[in-house]
């Protein structure tokens, strides 16, 4: 066990180390405060503000959409449909399958739907595609905790005259608030870090989008394009962009811990 722990710590620190070792020297204020100027990809001035803002828009949008769709599903599976265990287990199995589907498949699916409706690459198309991609993660992460809520709590709430939906959104949501925050965090991390699903759907641009119908840059694609460059300086900027992405995820994790601890105090054991 010690060996596996050591191995994990070693690999993780190597990744973080290599990102920051190559990225930090290039991580200037210019990187995070400017959009790419002409010739940026040849090592001239500019930054990746377009990708930072684009990724945040995309990840926040997709996470909120997935939460709005996923939370009711997780509640439905455990409260309204609790008599239909076979059906619910079937749904769980399907969701686990969807969890395992590579994100490029979601990207391709989103792309084909966009073609059908004649929509061009845009932030909105990206948000919808990514939200579908993180939806199974969101639902199953919440579901795993909601299914372990003691049935006594359901009975207590119902015996006070509340219906199932009131029980779901006024009692269960509070009881599972820390799990919901964790689910949001995991989903957000997946959303902001994924390149394949946004490749066809969100596109790429050097400017910051001003409407959801415009294409948008994202950090993973920005890293990809910079890393493909033969110029050493641009490659280093790719590592700097990766460092920015890592820091964003770190901030989100810390924030979510703080929030979930705040809301966890009412939880009954």
């Amino acid at each position, binding site marked *: 066990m010690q060996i596996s722990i050591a191995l994990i710590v070693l690999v993780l620190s190597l990744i973080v180390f290599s990102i920051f070792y190559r990225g930090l020297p290039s991580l200037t204020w210019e990187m995070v405060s400017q959009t790419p100027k002409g010739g940026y990809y040849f090592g001239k001035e500019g930054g990746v503000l377009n990708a930072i803002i684009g990724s945040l828009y995309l990840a926040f949008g997709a996470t909120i959409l997935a939460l709005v769709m996923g939370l009711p599903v997780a509640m439905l599976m455990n409260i309204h449909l*609790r*008599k*239909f*265990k076979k059906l619910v287990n079937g749904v769980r199995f399907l969701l686990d399958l969807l969890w395992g589907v590579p994100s490029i498949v979601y990207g391709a699916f989103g792309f084909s739907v966009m073609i059908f409706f004649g929509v061009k690459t845009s932030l909105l198309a990206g948000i919808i595609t990514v939200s579908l991609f993180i939806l199974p993660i969101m639902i199953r992460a919440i579901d795993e905790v909601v299914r372990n809520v*003691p*049935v*006594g*709590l*359901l*009975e*207590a*709430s*119902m*015996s*006070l*005259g*509340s*219906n199932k939906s*009131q029980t779901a959104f*006024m*009692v269960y949501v*509070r*009881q599972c608030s820390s799990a919901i925050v964790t689910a949001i965090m995991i989903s957000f991390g997946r959303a902001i870090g994924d390149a394949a699903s946004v490749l066809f759907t969100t596109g790429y641009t050097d400017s910051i989008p001003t409407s959801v119908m415009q294409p948008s840059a994202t950090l993973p694609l920005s890293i990809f394009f910079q890393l493909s460059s033969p110029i050493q300086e641009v490659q280093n900027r790719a590592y700097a962009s990766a460092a920015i992405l890592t820091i964003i995820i770190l901030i989100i994790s810390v924030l979510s811990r703080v929030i979930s601890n705040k809301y966890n*105090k*009412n*939880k*009954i*054991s």
Partner: protein
Amino acid sequence: MKSKISIQNLNLSIGKNQILKNINLDIPENQVTIILGPSGCGKTTLLKCLNRLIDLEENVTITGSIFLDNEDILHTKSDLPGIRKKMGLLSQRPYPLPMNIYDNIAYGLRINGIHNKHIIRESVEHNLKQVNLWDEVQHRLKEPASRLSIGQQQRLCLARGLAVKPEIILADEPTSALDPLSSTAIEKKFVELKEEYTLVMVTHILRQARRIADYVVFMYLGEIVEHGTADEFFNHPKQEKTKAYLEGIFN
């Protein structure tokens, strides 16, 4: 003796197991009815039929009728939350809602459409006093209910049930997780409450039944063996099984 609930020819199976067999029972109004019996005899299931929490279980087939004030609640078209609201529930171990003490009682009022802060505030105070909890918690109403002791939590659950003004209180071994002092508090409260409410309590503690019962139902393997007033039941039991159970030589 006026009956509040009338159970007629109730049969219940879960899958292929028949849990309740031909139950016929009248539960008297404004009295404490105790349902006695060994584990697994269907006491809790019977209780769950009354407030229809049995609907949450899988593969259940029920036949027969349960009349509450002449309405058959097993075959009713009126809404279930409305029926459940008439019956407060006290479970084996307390399940306070995951919110603060104040909101635990306010919740039932709010979902039933009462949002006037003044009325809620009064109801919280009144019902906490009803269960003798007010003095202990009046300065910590905004604290999570989960921080109370188990005994306090159970009294909070009773107060929460009373706040929605039920007609009946169902209790499923409500003292089994409590210390003797809290148990006594609950028992005393039950005896007081029968002035206004009809109480049905499941227990396996014979002495508790002797202390507070007005009417006793003895169940064994899903059937009612004997039922009658406390005096009849404890002092002049008719069935051999009842005698054996009361003498503690039952197995």
